[in-house]
């Protein structure tokens, strides 16, 4: 069989998860031998799923994968490795207390005398590969003592030593400093020159322009096409990456915002990898409006929400609810100010999966007088309130005694929402409120949010779903690289194109324009 132009061909890949979510829909993905190929797309576009299938971590529902002209059935990473595919995960797969060399030979350690480990040849092997590929590491240093950039080199070496010819790098620059990124790019180009093929997952436009030959853009589980990097502009990429398939419209009256409820000032936070996640973030949310926060995930949104509910402490800055500082204040006291939270990670922060629906619903109000008769619960009152909530919020269940964990994602979220919306909130923080749930529940939750805001609650809506954030919000801020990149007072005039440019960092408003988001 003649050597095909393509080293990897993925044809008509479909991936449907057991919960019915289709992560990939008829995706074609081709990589030429010896190129650096970018796989781009927003979070949730399906690029990680596609690569997991190429590395054998998951299997496609249908479709064909061809590696080096041979149709393969990649049932596990071990099989993928044997076909010459290596993957560098975003979260490193290293053992911290072992040395670099030990990590590299793990699972294939050289022996001497039949029984003992040949550490010398492990070190030699590491040095040899490090030299050959210009990936300089200290073989004898323990992994826990080396910087992140070197850990990444160890991961790349691990793949190379195992015979990988095709390297998948999953957002490799997410954890690196600028200098480390520049170094990584030199190393990747060096690898390319030696004939290796590199698949580079990222959504950073500048990086892509800098080192890739071609790129495939994914959106909502589909491929938006393959392009030569040199012949496509950043603006075009951004338009292809960010955009909506179906424009949804939510009916809502015009907001009439009044007093400021939430006021965030100069919030700063640097995470444990010394990466600045929040950089002087200031904004305010007023009574009666929905303020949306849009942005590609990982640009500080999660850190911001953590600060607003004391799940983490900022390095500097203040957060005030109706004039009261809430930094370092317990969640219970934050709640007593009328703040409610729909958390992004509902299974961890939203519910207790093994407790009943009823127990979850009253978990923020167990101390309320109406539920207590002397030292005991007034079960009748509890049953009544819960039955009302289950009815009002249309939670599909057998009874309030059912365990929450047994419900579907949409109904679990309805339980969270029922609790968070029924405590007369003055401020609702909704973090990805409709992620991964069915259409019916999504619509219901969106309607409720609008309803509550028109009734006088302040709503902060954080969402990676462009549809949601653009249609639901009255005004909107865009976060990029831990900073507010733009503020739009009125979302009606916004287009996907404009959003994309701010979300991907092509444009940034002046400080003055951004400053308008602080209403005093």
């Amino acid at each position, binding site marked *: 069989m003649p050597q095909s132009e393509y080293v990897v061909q993925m044809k008509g890949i479909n991936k449907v998860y057991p919960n019915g979510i289709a992560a990939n829909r008829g995706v074609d993905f081709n990589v030429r031998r010896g190129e650096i190929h970018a796989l781009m797309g927003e979070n949730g576009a399906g690029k990680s799923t596609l690569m997991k299938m190429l590395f054998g971590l998951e299997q496609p529902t249908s479709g064909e994968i061809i590696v080096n002209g041979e149709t393969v059935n990649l049932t596990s990473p071990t099989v993928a490795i044997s076909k010459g595919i290596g993957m560098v995960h975003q979260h490193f797969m290293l053992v911290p207390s072992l040395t670099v060399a030990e990590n590299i030979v793990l699972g294939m350690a050289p022996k001497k005398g039949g029984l*003992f480990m040949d550490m010398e040849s492990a070190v030699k092997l590491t040095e040899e590969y490090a030299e050959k590929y210009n990936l300089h590491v200290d073989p004898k240093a323990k992994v826990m003592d080396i910087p992140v950039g070197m850990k990444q080199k160890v991961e790349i070496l691990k793949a190379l030593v195992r015979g990988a010819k095709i390297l998948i790098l999953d957002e490799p620059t997410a954890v690196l400093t600028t200098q480390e990124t520049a170094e990584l790019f030199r190393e990747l180009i060096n690898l390319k020159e030696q004939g290796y093929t590199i698949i580079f997952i990222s959504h950073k436009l500048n990086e892509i322009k800098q080192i890739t030959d071609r790129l495939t853009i994914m959106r909502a589980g589909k491929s938006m096409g393959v392009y030569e990097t040199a012949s496509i502009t950043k603006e075009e990429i951004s338009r292809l990456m960010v955009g909506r398939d179906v424009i949804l419209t939510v009916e809502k009256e015009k907001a009439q915002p009044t007093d400021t409820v939430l006021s965030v000032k100069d919030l700063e936070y640097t995470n444990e990898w010394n990466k600045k996640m929040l950089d002087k973030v200031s904004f305010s949310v007023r009574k009666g409006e929905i303020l949306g926060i849009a942005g590609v995930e990982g640009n500080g949104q999660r850190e911001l929400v953590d600060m607003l509910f004391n799940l983490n402490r900022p390095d500097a800055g203040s957060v005030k609810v109706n004039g009261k500082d809430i930094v370092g204040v317990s969640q219970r006291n934050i709640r007593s100010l009328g703040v409610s939270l729909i958390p992004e990670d509902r299974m961890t922060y939203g519910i207790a999966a093994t407790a009943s629906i009823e127990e979850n619903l009253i978990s923020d109000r167990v101390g309320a007088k109406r539920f207590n008769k002397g030292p005991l619960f007034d079960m009748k009152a509890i049953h009544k309130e819960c039955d009302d909530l289950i009815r009002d919020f249309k939670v599909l269940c057998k009874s309030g005694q059912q365990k929450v964990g047994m419900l579907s994602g949409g109904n679990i979220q309805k339980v969270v929402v029922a609790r968070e919306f029924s405590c007369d909130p003055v401020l609702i923080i909704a973090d990805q409120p409709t992620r991964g749930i069915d259409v019916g529940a999504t619509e219901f939750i969106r309607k409720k949010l609008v309803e509550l805001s028109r009734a006088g609650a302040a709503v902060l809506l954080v969402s990676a779903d462009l549809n949601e954030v653009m249609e639901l919000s009255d005004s909107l801020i865009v976060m990029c690289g831990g900073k507010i990149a733009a503020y739009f007072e009125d979302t009606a005039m916004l287009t996907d194109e404009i959003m994309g440019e701010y979300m991907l960092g092509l444009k940034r408003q002046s400080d003055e324009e951004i400053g308008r988001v602080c209403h005093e």
Partner: protein
Amino acid sequence: MKQLMEMVFQAEFVASVIRITAPILFAALGAVIAEKAGLTNMGLEGMMMIAALFGTLTSYWTQSWAVGVLCALLVGMLLSLMVGFFSLKLKTDIILAGIAVNMLGGGGTIFLLYMFTGMRGNTGSLVSQNILIPTLEIPLIKDIPVLGEILSGHSLLTYLAFLFVFLLWVLLYKTPLGLNIRAVGENNHAAESVGIKVRRIQYIALAFSGALAGLGGAFMSMYYSQGWNSGMVAGRGFIALAAQAMGRGEPVGTLLSSLLFGLAQALRTKASALPDISTYLVSVIPYVATVLGLVFYAAATVRRVKKARRPKEEAEEK
């Protein structure tokens, strides 16, 4: 007090420390290898009990101490693999599985002994000199004054216990198996991603752990107590877990902390022979030493963690 001091500064006392340390050391090394694979072998105590009984019984039946020791080793290994089966395959909590073995060791052994021999609580009448583990006089060394008395004349298994410190270190740090065990214990996803069979490595570590506990049990019934009785192991399996923790899970560190506990036990034995001191009070010495040891260990760890954290925080401020 003076009497106690006199006793302590005798070669015979030091030799007794070594003798008493050996069973703790066996079990503690068993705890080390299990912990390195990320598993807490809570059942060491029970494994020692049961292995000790079978060691004595088989040595009586075969009239061979070596077969007895081998049997104890195998019984310990099997029990440990059973714990592995329950926790790794059937997904019960490994601590609970270990506690189950301990309870089996407490009650089941008395029943088994009665079933096999009709004896109640101890095997006193079964034991004869030829089925006990022999002692070894080391040529040359035994003739050196003081040192000879301390180092020579111990049982074969005592020397083996100390030898195992070295062997375990070699296994963990100088062989591919040891590398795999450490990788599995620390980050089993990383191990799995390079094709290491995590479950298999964990079973292997547990087998070693149980075998070591079995040897500890054999030492107790076939040498130290010269026969099996129901109160014989007396918490050594738990002390071993403490020794492992105090020794930071390393073979050499665990040797030192085992020696410390051995010293406490030896002190108790000596002090209880003194007049004027309540034997009940004295008998708590080893256990108080265990608690104190763990407290010191915990305090040291906290301090170390704080120290490790401080430079990082300073770096962040910059």
